[in-house]
């Protein structure tokens, strides 16, 4: 092991433990988990994640001591062949420390939250044994994410990059036999496959980028690549950066590969929060920020990245405004916010991008977890309601909950084949906002933390989202007008759909019995929510746009190079704040002034086709099916069945080649064996071998005299040759 830096390395040696701790956690749970209680499993997993957080903090301390200088810790050799030379080297610098703090910090909170959430979830879905698996996957995710952000080369980053993709697949497909409403279905598993495949499309871009990079730079190691940027033709770098962009659009759900993220909400809520909002999806942003020297050297590529981000931000925001599922709204919101980040890093505003990444991690995790809490509450409420209908004696007394659940489970397993919810007479969607309303009263804690998230996301000062988003808008206004306007409009939509959501979920009257009977979640769920809420509210302090406060900016400077620390621009901030407030006002007018009623059509429907488009996600899924998926299936089936099988296998090889062979040997012989007799044989002759063999058999007729003739024939031929030659 060698140390690349001569500075005091402090706790650097702990870097690999960022990965090892979660791995140890998952191994313990995998191998011994079947003997553990749920609490124990959760504790092991959370401790593993927590340990990673502690390591992150220690590394932060170390890196701060070195003023953010990059430090590298080589763990082992990896691939050394030809000129390719890659090691398992961990890179700790200000950027990766920031990321690892977010990942392990938010991650640990979500682990804890998940103990409570999954406790209920596995019971509602009737497979208690799967509790353990969830935490194994979650730890695996933390490990993969740590590899991603601490990798010292693009390829090690890629390991984490695909690793988190795998975790995403596993966790989206966690309830692989169900659909969103817990009915037996393929839909969740399809969502999982879709997530992985879409990511792989992006990874294809990533791979190509690494190939070009390797043969242009001779290395995939960050420092070596960045040092040579001036010596490499810009065209090559443009190619590299654009292929990376394809990877980014996959991982960070940007246009055109974003389609997997909304479906990924099939995963349990903590997954949506951790992976599909706070951490994994920001990997693309991290990649661009990490590649800052590359992107900064090619403005053309930067513009494209910024536009992709901006377009995504607006496009997803419009869809979010038309959704009824509480998690879908958040999912499109995530896509939209990721668009903000990508646009930011695309414009070279790396600090702004990372800043937004951090604050977004706080408030979006908060929102998702709160939404999860809402859904749990709704499920509980629905359960009571159903049970009340079913059995008038058991009216949702707290003390009886366990028993009731037990009964319900028995009932469920009894009616498994018919589908769980049909047993209760109706299909109930606990995530549909049209079923909610008035939850403010039944779930007060959730309501307040949700509000915190909402204001942060909407960009209301002085909450965290305001500061980070404003910084992006400010940068955009200076670098890229088109992106600026797109983002500003997106910001308007953001505030609108968040307002719409809040009004529909928490205000007004309960539109469903379940909402009326909803219950607040237990402490194991609410405590992490409160912590996250605090972070969401105060997160802006990380990088306030005032002289002497650009903490994050200065911190990241060591890694990203000189960054401009812009002061607050009142014009930009003013416009965005005003728009946000206006949007919330409009949403209030539409959804709260006259509370949204049961079975009411959405007021937005008056927009006609525009709303339909928003509601149907602009038919992108259908378009993709039409353009890519169906053709792919058709082409593969065509190749497989027609070309490969019927033509190549059956016709060419069976008929032509094997047929000829059979002709020559087997068919003829078998026919002969069956029919006996020379005539039958003669009829069945097909090939020259057969006919020759047959002729020979005829010649061999058993008559001595013809044999003698043959001898004479030989004599004549030989003598004839010798005499007349």
């Amino acid at each position, binding site marked *: 092991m060698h140390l690349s830096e001569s500075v005091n390395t402090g706790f650097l040696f702990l870097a690999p433990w960022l990965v090892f701790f979660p791995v140890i956690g998952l191994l313990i749970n995998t191998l011994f988990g079947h003997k553990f209680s749920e609490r124990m499993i959760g504790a092991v997993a959370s401790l593993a994640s927590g340990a990673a957080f502690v390591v992150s903090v220690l590394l932060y301390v170390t890196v701060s001591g070195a003023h953010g200088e990059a430090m590298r810790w080589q763990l082992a050799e990896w691939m050394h062949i030809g000129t390719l030379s890659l090691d398992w080297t961990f890179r700790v610098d200000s950027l990766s420390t920031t990321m690892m703090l977010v990942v392990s910090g938010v991650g640990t909170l979500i682990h804890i939250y998940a103990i409570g959430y999954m406790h209920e979830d596995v019971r509602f879905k009737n497979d208690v044994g799967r509790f353990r698996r969830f935490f194994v996957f979650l730890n695996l995710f933390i490990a993969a994410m740590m590899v991603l952000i601490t990798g010292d080369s693009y390829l090690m980053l890629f390991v984490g990059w695909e690793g988190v993709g795998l975790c995403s697949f596993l966790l989206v497909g966690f309830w692989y036999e169900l659909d969103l409403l817990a009915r037996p279905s393929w839909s969740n598993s399809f969502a999982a496959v879709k997530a992985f495949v879409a990511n792989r499309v992006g990874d294809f871009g990533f791979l190509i980028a690494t190939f070009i990079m390797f043969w242009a730079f001779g290395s995939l190691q960050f420092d070596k690549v960045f040092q040579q940027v001036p010596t490499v033709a810009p065209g090559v770098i443009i190619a590299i950066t654009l292929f990376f962009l394809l990877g980014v659009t996959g991982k960070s759900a940007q246009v055109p590969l974003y389609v997997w993220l909304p479906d990924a909400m099939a995963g349990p809520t903590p997954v949506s929060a951790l992976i599909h909002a706070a951490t994994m999806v920001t990997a693309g942003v991290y990649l661009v920020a990490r590649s800052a020297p590359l992107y900064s050297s090619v403005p053309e590529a930067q513009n494209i990245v910024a536009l992709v981000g901006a377009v995504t931000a607006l496009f997803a925001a419009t869809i979010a405004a038309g959704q009824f599922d509480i998690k879908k709204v958040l999912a499109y919101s995530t896509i939209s916010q990721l668009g903000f980040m990508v646009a930011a890093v695309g414009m070279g505003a790396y600090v702004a991008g990372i800043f937004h990444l951090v604050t977004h991690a706080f408030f979006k995790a908060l929102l998702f977890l709160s939404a999860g809490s809402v859904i749990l509450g709704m499920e509980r409420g629905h359960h009571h309601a159903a049970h009340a209908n079913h059995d008038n004696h058991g009216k949702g007394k707290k003390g009886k909950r366990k028993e009731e659940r037990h009964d319900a489970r028995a009932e469920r397993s009894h009616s498994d084949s018919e589908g769980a919810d049909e047993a209760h007479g109706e299909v109930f969607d606990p995530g549909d906002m049209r079923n909610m309303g008035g939850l403010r009263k039944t779930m007060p804690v959730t309501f307040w933390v949700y509000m915190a998230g909402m204001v942060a996301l909407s960009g209301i000062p002085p909450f965290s989202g305001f500061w980070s988003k404003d910084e992006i808008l400010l940068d955009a206004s200076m670098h890229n007008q088109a992106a600026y306007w797109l983002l500003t409009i997106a910001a308007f939509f953001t505030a609108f759909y968040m307002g719409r959501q809040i009004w529909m979920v928490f205000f007004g009257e309960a539109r469903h019995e379940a909402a009326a009977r909803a219950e607040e979640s237990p402490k194991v769920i609410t405590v992490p929510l409160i912590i996250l809420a605090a972070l969401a509210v105060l997160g802006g302090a990380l990088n306030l746009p005032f002289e002497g406060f650009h903490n994050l900016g200065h911190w990241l400077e060591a890694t990203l190079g000189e960054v401009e620390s812009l002061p607050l621009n009142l014009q930009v901030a003013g416009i965005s704040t005003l728009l946000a407030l206006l949007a919330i006002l409009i949403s209030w007018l539409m959804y709260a002034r006259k509370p949204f009623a049961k079975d009411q059509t959405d007021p937005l429907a008056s927009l006609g086709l525009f709303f339909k488009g928003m509601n149907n996600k602009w038919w992108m899924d259908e378009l993709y099916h039409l353009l890519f998926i169906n053709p792919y299936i058709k082409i593969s089936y065509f190749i497989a069945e027609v070309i490969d099988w019927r033509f190549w296998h059956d016709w060419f090889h069976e008929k032509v080649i094997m047929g000829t062979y059979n002709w*020559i*040997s087997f068919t*003829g*012989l078998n026919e*002969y*064996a069956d029919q006996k007799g020379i005539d039958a*044989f003669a009829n069945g002759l097909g090939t020259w*071998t*057969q006919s*020759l*063999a*047959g002729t*020979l*058999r005829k*010649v*061999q007729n*058993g008559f*001595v005299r*013809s*044999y*003698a003739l*043959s*001898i004479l*024939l*030989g*004599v004549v*031929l*030989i*003598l004839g*040759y*010798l*005499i007349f*030659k």
Partner: protein
Amino acid sequence: MTQSDLTTILPVTILTVWACVLLLVDLLIPKTRKGITALLSALGLAVTLGYTLAQIGSEVTGFNGMVTLDGFSIFVNALLLVSGLLGVALAYGYIKRMGIERGEYYTLLLFSVVGMMLMAQATDLIVVFLALELLSIPLYVLAAFARDKTDSEEAGLKYFLLGAFSSGFLVYGIALIFGATHTTNIFAIVEFVSTSTGSLLLTIGAALLLIGFGFKVAVVPFHMWTPDVYQGAPTAVTAFMTSGAKIAGFAALLRVFATAFPSIAADMTNVFWVISAATMILGNVAAVAQTDIKRLLAYSSIAHAGYILMAFVPYGNETVVATSVAAGLFYLVAYVFTNFGAWGVVIALEKEAGKGLALDDYAGLAKKHPALAAAMTIFMLSLIGLPPTIGLIGKLYLFRAVIDAGFVWLAIIGVLTSVVSAFYYLRVVVIMYMKDGEPAAERETWLDTTTLVTALVTVVVSFIPQFLFAWASEAVLKLF
């Protein structure tokens, strides 16, 4: 009669005397114990073999150059005696089982071996003729040995008529050669030819001789008797015939042509070429359509005669002939062992009244008698020329020698026909291993021993072929 005369014919004499004595002794052996005759005849063969092997290296000529005992004849004699032994071993249980057990069987076999040995030793055309008849006549009788079976009778008659017919050509050929060269001694013929211009009479005579030998070794177009006779004759006889007669025929062919007729090599080479090619093609192609194992092996023996004849094609080319003929001898050895082994398996499966000889009767053999099936597989592989068997090595030597002599196309025909042969040989294997059936096989000590020994030789020699080839090269060295 001088000392050298006696030494020259001593192996033959031992065996002849032994056979005559056995004929008498057999009268004293009760009908039920004819096995003793078998053992005694085997003993005779073994003693002669021992003596022959002891003579390796010696080189004597007797009876005014009519007979010789040189490296070549010792090699061939040894091989013949081994064939005799294997023939006795195969016959031991078989003729008992088929109800044709009579003491004469072994005596006839011994006489036939004597004829074969004499054929290898003959250096005078008169002796060649005598030896040829001495080997043939007992074989005619043996072929018809199962007197109550019409097939056997038919085989005997066909063999006899056609054999006599071909002897007619042989004798006439000798007459013409005599007319052309004033002598029947092959050394004298060489001498005569070297001092005079070649005559058409000699060429025709040589061609007629070739017909006589060609009949014995069964090459196209003198092969037509082979399938019928091999099928009709008792299997143990067939096994012996396919090997012994072939060895003797080739030995005589080689000695006569290589020693006496190098002068007409240019013409004869073409003839040999065509015959060899035609034999390989016809034998293998015709075998494809066979459903009776005996006929299949009969055609296979024709095909192999073609391969062996390849070795004689370049017989006039002094630079390669030694290697080529050595390769031929090696191939003969390979063929003899493989062939006996295969016939041994056939005998094990044969039932009374010609049952158990169809290919389909081999279905399921691998399940019922795995060792037998494995042995048969080895023999089939060897006949195709696949490793790890001696058949491969034989073909390698042979093809290479032919290629070196410049007959590339002949080698290609050889390879291609080998590929064709794979079809029908492997069919046997496929049937044994992959079809279901209930074959019953006779397990008898001598038979099993024969099969085992031949299988072992077939495999083991393929790993250490050098010594045998060296011996064969040594043996033919003095011929040219």
